[in-house]
């Protein structure tokens, strides 16, 4: 009965939430109504096989790499105690604040043949490392892993910290030691969270343009831009993007299917957490060094290099930068709230939605993340402008496009959090007389707090770094730090772009720190 009355409302909500993402996806589908046969013959022969292989390899390596790195660090921090653990537990999130394209440029600038590292090696040790090519698929994969692993790390840490002492004890009485417990209980139970993290990483990798462009690695996304910018065919570019969407949809579907019924496995909120194991001696040092090395490569050294570059152009720093920073903060902050609120709505609607159409809509709503930013921006911008100039000069289109792109980022953690709320809890709250909004506030929000914070952090830092949508849909004079990077970088003045880049990192740092500290209390 309730299901019948609830389902239509849920479907409507899902349809509304899917609309922003549907606009560009529809554009990629509609583009196929008149295939650019000339361009396609060319693409099929000279472009697609190569870029498809590159994309697959890149997604594979980045997915695998961030899974290992993110889950490994999550395991280290969640289950062990070593010097600096408290610091690392949030500091390992900091690479999130470094835009991938920035890290790529820093890596290319410092590690390439002409960079200081190789120059020094040649000067000192007569070492010619021509062979060791940074600007390659491997280099791009490394940079993407270093910037994207925090997605997996964050979700893995939360999942691991939810591991209960009882489960360990059960496993022990069944003959498994801690290692066996981790392998056979913790990991499988964390699998949905890990999968969600890796899915985000893969989608971001597919959509990435900044890193692969800096390293000149040709992927489907660069092919899309080349078709649009170089061959002057947005039509064919959209068709390529449509192909991308299909691949991503199929992958997401397969992943979901492989998880199958495990999704039903709801656990009660845990009472007793697993105690951390104190590492001593060499192990403690090794743990600390491992964490420090990742943090150093992904954050400390790049930020140091950026700061050095920024120092060279310190003259650029003027009062306007305060505006840029505040605007970036404002956009990212309000955008994160909007997207997280939408994700909450999305999660509830998805849980209530009865039939397959509604669920399909719900999944579509999160596909925008895999679309290259500029394609998505055009896909949202063009149809909304058909409404007339109504929205001109406002931030409405920008926020709608943000929603289309970043709903996926927030939906993962929120859905995971909702799944952990036992159905019985709902009923208990209903019998206690709180229902609807009151139930949300008094029962669900406290339980969801951790997941919502995770979602908010992820969207926030993503929005701080976001470029193509902001660039296209912003009103006049609306400059953010990332727009500033574009202004400097578009003409190759990378060292001058360091100043806004450092500021993005700094401005993004504080919220990441505050939110993750709070999460420690909540989770």
């Amino acid at each position, binding site marked *: 009965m309730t299901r019948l009355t609830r389902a239509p409302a849920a479907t409507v909500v899902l349809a509304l939430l899917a609309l922003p993402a549907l606009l560009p996806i529809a554009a990629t589908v509609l583009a196929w109504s008149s295939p650019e046969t000339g361009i396609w013959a*060319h693409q099929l022969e*000279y*472009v697609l096989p190569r870029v498809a292989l590159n994309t697959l390899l890149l997604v594979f390596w980045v997915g695998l790499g961030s899974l290992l790195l993110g889950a490994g660090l999550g395991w280290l921090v969640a289950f062990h105690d070593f010097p600096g653990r408290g610091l690392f537990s949030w500091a390992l999130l900091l690479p999130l604040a470094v835009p991938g394209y920035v890290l790529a440029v820093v890596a*290319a*600038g410092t590690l*390439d*043949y*002409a960079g200081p590292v*190789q*120059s020094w090696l040649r000067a000192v040790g007569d070492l010619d490392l021509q062979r060791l*090519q940074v*600007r390659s698929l491997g280099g791009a994969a490394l940079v993407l892993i270093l910037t994207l692993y925090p997605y997996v790390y964050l979700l893995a840490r939360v999942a691991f910290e939810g591991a209960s002492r009882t489960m360990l004890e059960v496993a022990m009485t069944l003959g498994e030691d801690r290692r066996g417990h981790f392998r056979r209980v913790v990991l499988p139970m964390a699998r949905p969270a890990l999968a969600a993290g890796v899915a985000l990483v893969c989608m971001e990798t597919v959509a990435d343009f900044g890193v692969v*462009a*800096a*390293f*000149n690695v*040709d992927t489907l996304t*660069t092919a899309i*831009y*080349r078709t*649009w*910018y*170089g*061959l*002057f*065919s947005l039509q064919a570019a959209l068709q390529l993007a449509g192909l991308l969407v299909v691949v991503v949809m199929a992958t997401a579907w397969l992943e979901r299917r492989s998880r199958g019924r495990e999704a039903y496995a709801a656990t009660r909120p845990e009472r007793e957490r697993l105690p951390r194991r104190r590492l001593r001696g060499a192990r403690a040092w090794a743990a600390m060094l491992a964490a420090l090395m990742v943090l150093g490569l992904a954050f400390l050294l790049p930020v140091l290099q950026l700061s050095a570059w920024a120092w060279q152009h310190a003259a650029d720093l003027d009062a306007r930068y305060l505006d840029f920073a505040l605007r970036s903060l*404002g956009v990212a*902050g*309000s955008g994160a*709230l*909007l997207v997280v*609120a939408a994700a909450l709505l999305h999660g509830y609607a998805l849980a209530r939605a009865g039939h397959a159409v509604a669920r399909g809509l719900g999944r579509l709503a999160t596909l925008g993340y895999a679309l290259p930013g*500029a394609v998505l*921006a*055009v896909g949202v911008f*063009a149809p909304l*402008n*058909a409404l007339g100039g109504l929205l001109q*000069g*406002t*931030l409405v289109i920008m*926020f709608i496009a943000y929603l289309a792109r970043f709903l996926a980022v927030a939906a993962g953690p929120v859905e995971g959090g909702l799944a952990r709320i036992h159905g019985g809890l709902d009923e208990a709250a209903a019998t206690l007389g709180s229902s609807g909004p009151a139930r949300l506030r008094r029962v669900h929000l406290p339980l969801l*707090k951790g997941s*919502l914070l995770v979602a908010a952090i992820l969207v926030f830092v993503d929005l701080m770094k976001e470029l*193509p949508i902001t*660039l*296209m849909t*912003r*009103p*006049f*004079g*609306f400059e953010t730090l990332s727009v500033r990077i*574009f*202004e*400097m970088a*578009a*003409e*190759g*003045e*990378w060292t001058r772009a360091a100043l806004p880049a450092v500021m993005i990192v700094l401005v993004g740092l504080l919220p990441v720190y505050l939110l993750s500290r709070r999460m420690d209390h909540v989770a």
Partner: protein
Amino acid sequence: MNPAGALARVALLLTLVAAPALSADPLVVYSARNEQLIKPLFDRYTRETGIEVRFTTADAAVLIERIAAEGRNSPADILMTVDAGELWRATERGLLRPLQSRVLADNIPAHLRDPEGRWFGLSMRARTLAYDPRKVDAASLSTYEALAEPRWKGKLCLRTSKKVYNQSLVAMLIAQQGEARTEQVVRGWIANLAAPVFANDTQLLEAIAAGQCEVGIVNTYYLGRILKDRPEFPVKLYWANQGSGGVHVNISGAGVVTTSRQPAAAQRFLEWLSAGEAQRFFAAVNAEYPANPAVGLDPLVAGWGTFESSQINLGKAGTLQPQAVRLMDRAGYR
């Protein structure tokens, strides 16, 4: 986490941004040329005329789609790009209107503007050879095509073919020498590469300086920028194809948008940019060459000497660009 507060914040932002400007009829420029290269000039125009100039920046292809999507509601008066191909593309979409301007016709040489007056070059960007004088005798250099010869094997550096500068260079080679010969040349280049192609000209110049390669093809202003910081930078320019077609030039240029509500004011602004101090600054700020030959050069740029440039109309760069891109795909130029 207070949703009501968040909404209020969004609403506040929206109204702040949507608030109408005080000055009447500002000019609106959609620019692919970066803020720091245009804003000083725009401010100056406002000081001189009282007309406010608003702008937004993005990639040209994105700006074109934006104008097209906005249709008759587009606030854009002027589209400014850093490449002729994009302007040609905008005319193909019917987004630029023809201007009847004596001033522009006089100031800008014919090959640097649309024959129908829909766009005009405002500065000229020369793409020529850069070499390491410690290893290369200038006498051994001659043309773009010559870099395809086996003697440069393992010595050539190129920027990615994704950059429009290389696409228009190859387009112009096709215009001069035909597709078959050009493909041969590009294949030769690729065979000679010393390192994977670079993401930008600055990296390429650094690679020459570091000894990774001996010669490359760059836009001159990238070297200009480096030289302003490091006068001792050990890379020199060579003017290619002197006596055989001339140095490949592109433009940073602009046109008036078809749907502009004040085309006359927009035209006056372009005319102002095409001459005098404005024209000198437009080029000098980025070590480019003024499109107006009557305007003086930046001293650093002047130091590189004079050269014969290609006289083919730059509209060709647009028409041939897709062909050039496909050719580079075929030749394995990434």
